[in-house]
């Protein structure tokens, strides 16, 4: 199977280049990550991140034939040859397919991704009704692979100011949580022309999410909460 992979080692290369590979697959190779590991067995200079190899850790996010996704859950049979692999767009490249995610996690940190509740905890646990718990479905599943934020043009143009789809989905996850007491502060934190309103509903985020989540919808719900608060 033919591959064309983005290569860049800042210690050696003046600028990035695409390297072609032709690798023989085994019958057990089903996912793109299997094929990349075959390539790595031949050329161990190829750099990439991977860990769980089953779409849970979110390490192997990359740009596959122009669309962001996780290599470990992308079936080889669906890919057109040559398979063009590039690092996630918009983030600084450390080496080959490895990007510097600092900016992404800085934005994630800025939305305070943890439960804020100053009331003394009850004896056993803070309870929710099944309906209240239902609200968190489609939000808590995010694995922070950064496929969505790095496919968002608004995040490309203003990664230092726009929170980005992944972190906004997480922001809504805590706004929607009935056990969280900081809803108003969270909305204050986001009510900003750059932090939230750079989203122009392009919907690349929902298109690429490997977990099938919809950050655009969550962003819409944040705006809805703000409108409810204002009018």
């Amino acid at each position, binding site marked *: 199977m033919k591959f064309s992979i983005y290569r860049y080692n800042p210690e050696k290369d003046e600028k990035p280049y695409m390297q072609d590979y032709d690798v023989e697959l085994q019958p057990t190779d089903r996912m793109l990550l299997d094929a990349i590991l075959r390539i790595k067995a031949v050329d161990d200079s190829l750099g990439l991140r991977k860990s769980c190899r089953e779409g849970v850790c979110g390490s192997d996010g990359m740009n596959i034939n122009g669309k962001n996704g996780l290599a470990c859950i992308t079936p080889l049979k669906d890919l057109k040859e040559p398979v063009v692999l590039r690092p996630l767009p918009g983030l600084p490249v450390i080496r080959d397919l490895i990007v510097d995610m600092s900016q992404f996690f800085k934005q994630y940190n800025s939305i305070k991704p943890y439960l804020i509740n100053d009331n003394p905890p009850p004896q056993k646990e803070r309870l929710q009704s099944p309906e209240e718990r239902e609200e968190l479905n489609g939000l808590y599943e995010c694995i922070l692979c950064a496929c969505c934020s790095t496919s968002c*043009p*608004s995040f490309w*143009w*203003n990664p*230092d*100011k726009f929170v980005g789809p992944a972190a906004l989905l997480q922001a809504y996850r805590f706004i929607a949580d009935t056990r969280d007491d900081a809803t108003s502060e969270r909305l*204050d934190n986001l*009510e*900003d*022309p*750059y*932090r*939230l*309103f*750079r989203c*122009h509903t392009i919907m690349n985020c929902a298109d690429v999410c490997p977990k099938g989540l919809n950050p655009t919808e969550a962003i819409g719900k944040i*705006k809805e909460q*703000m*409108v409810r608060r*204002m009018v």
Partner: protein
Amino acid sequence: MVKRVVVGAHYGLRDWLLQRITAIVMAVYTVAFLVVVLPSLPMGFEDWRAGFAHPVVKISTLLFLLSAMLHAWVGVRDIFMDYIKPFGLRLFLQVVVILTLFVYALWAIQLLWSV
């Protein structure tokens, strides 16, 4: 001055809402305009003049034009915020757009009430 990334202007919701509401106003006017005008085509100069002499047409057209300008202001500012990085240039361009739209609004009033 130290270069820092500053955010937290705490506005944006009103503009976002305004853009949606003005879009609805423009859509309703456009449909209403077509419903009224299409059946009575072809229209001569006198027909157009008689139509726009009616105060309801004047005011609804002005509402449409003001909506278009407010809508454009939010949209054009969004484009500047996305693509124009030097903040001095961004401020300058925003002022130019505001003044231009203001002149257009006054011009629209003058045109509509000259009929």
